[in-house]
């Protein structure tokens, strides 16, 4: 168990190191923050002092080393776009917003996808199966910003049920969470369906049927218990996909999370925040994967040695 943990964590750290290099290079190749942050008619003097202040006149490798040493201590510098804000602190302040949205989105997708997948499996080949698959696929077939805006108009403006945008009450989170979740439903429902099909064919289920257990009991008690673990296998990819989706959806709904920060920071060439936010994304992703792996270890002791 301990060895497994050490291996997993050290390989994650290695990946993180490579990511810092990529992030650093990309953000520094992407033009100078001078041009995004100083006014159009800035003088050379203003530009020079800005460049000196941010160490942009140092050689690139030296800037990277400085960056890495500071980053390890959690210090990513101060934001250029939000003056006075600590870059990582600023990102971390926004993380709960994204986690809430992502958590709710995962919840919604699981709550919708599991019954869909089960129904599709139980009524395999019927209209229910096709309908469920169709519904699930719909979410994956629409550009998410388009879906997001349509949801705003239908549910906020025409029906007046939910607020259009911003963060605040629970109601504010519903539309963006649905917009993110629907995309995931298809994959989850599909996984659940095939897992259910497999389980329903298994010997012990057949045995239960022979023993005279009612079909409802078979489905709900025996099959579901075993098939429901499926979302777990998918959790890593789900997390990555939801994080990616948050960039677009948070912008549409003005939801002040990490995705929103990422977009604003890249547009503003806010190097410190861009670096902080991408590293934060990577860490969240890796932690969620580690979490899944650990859960597996708890479930299946054989993996500890595998």
């Amino acid at each position, binding site marked *: 168990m301990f060895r497994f943990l050490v291996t997993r964590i050290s390989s994650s750290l290695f990946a993180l190191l490579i990511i810092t290099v990529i992030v650093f290079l*990309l953000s520094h190749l992407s033009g100078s923050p001078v041009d995004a942050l100083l006014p159009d008619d800035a003088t050379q003097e203003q530009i020079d002092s800005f460049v000196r202040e941010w160490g942009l006149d140092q050689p690139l490798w030296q800037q990277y080393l400085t960056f890495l040493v500071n980053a390890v201590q959690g210090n990513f510098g101060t934001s250029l776009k939000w003056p006075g804000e600590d870059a990582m602190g600023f990102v971390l302040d926004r993380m709960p917003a994204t986690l809430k949205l992502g958590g709710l989105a995962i919840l919604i997708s699981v709550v919708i996808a599991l019954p869909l997948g089960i129904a599709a499996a139980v009524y395999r080949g*019927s209209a229910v199966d096709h309908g469920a698959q169709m519904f699930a696929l719909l979410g994956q*077939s629409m*550009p998410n910003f*388009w879906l997001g805006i349509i949801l705003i108009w239908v549910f906020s403006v025409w029906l007046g049920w939910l607020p259009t945008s911003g963060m605040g009450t629970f109601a504010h989170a519903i539309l963006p969470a649905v917009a993110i979740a629907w995309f995931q439903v298809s994959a989850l429902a599909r996984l659940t369906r095939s897992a259910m099909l497999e389980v329903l064919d298994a010997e012990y289920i057949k045995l239960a049927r022979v023993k005279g257990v009612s079909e409802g009991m078979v489905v709900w008690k025996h099959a579901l218990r075993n098939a429901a673990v499926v979302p777990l296998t998918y959790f890593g990819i789900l997390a*990555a996909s939801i994080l990616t989706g948050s960039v677009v959806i948070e912008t549409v709904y003005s939801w002040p999370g990490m995705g929103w920060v990422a977009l604003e920071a890249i*547009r503003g060439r806010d190097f410190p925040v861009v670096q902080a*936010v991408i590293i934060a994304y990577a860490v969240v992703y*890796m932690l969620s994967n580690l979490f899944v792996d650990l859960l597996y270890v708890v479930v299946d002791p054989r993996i500890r040695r595998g």
Partner: protein
Amino acid sequence: MADSMINTPQSPGLWAKARNLPLIPLAVLLIVFIIPAFFAEYLAPHDPYVPNLRARLQPPVFFGGTWEFPMGTDRLGRDILSRILHGAWYVLAVSMIGITVGVVVGTTLGLVAGYARGWFDGLVMRLVDISLALPAMLLALALAASMGTSFLSVVIVVGFALWAYFARQVRAEVLLLRRSDFVERSMVAGSSHTRILFRHILPNVTNTIVVLATLQVGIAIMLDASLSFLGIGIPRPTPTWGLLVSDGRDFIATDWWISFFPGLAILLTVLSANMLGDWLRDKLDPRQRQV
């Protein structure tokens, strides 16, 4: 869809095979996607690029418009239908080339990693981790800011977003195949590694790759649309569908047709591609459970 047809006990002849083809998705793909991609020039009623400022924001036919612009016009008076038809080729090209990049890179790395194991396997798996942990969208933004946007940059981003899935999948299969009897027999028989890889292992993972690739068409098209939304897609005035939807998104509540029809084209294409992928998976690889 096809399953719902009546199951008459017949000998599985040509007709039975054809009957099992997902006809509707195939037809939709052909009509919405493939045919326009290659024959837009002959099909489109108008030039997709030239603004017609006297015909701005015309509604579609049956909604107050005329047959001259069956799907209405955009803010610059360009015919939506013509733009969708002409855009199909770019959508096709981006998704096909992007997926090809993903398949080639992912399959090669996955094959070798699964076969060679050891440090190379470790390295590839770390790269997979890295690639999954870096949201493609953020990478695309940074890439766009540094090298500008072009057809190429979009293809690179799509390829980057997809290769890891192929690599992971292929590697997992190779690990299983490696232990199979026929591979072990060839090893004993002294076949070269290249021969084993390409003669014995690769053919056995082809089905997986084909299925996965079909299912990735949707992801590639969605990514292209998201990039357009962020203003870093294929540059204007190229009418990729993502750009059309993105350009019309401000007008969803009013001049809805600007984004509706391109959105519908995306929806139908992705839906059909996914249904086709599902069907292929059932045919080629019924036991595969991955997404």
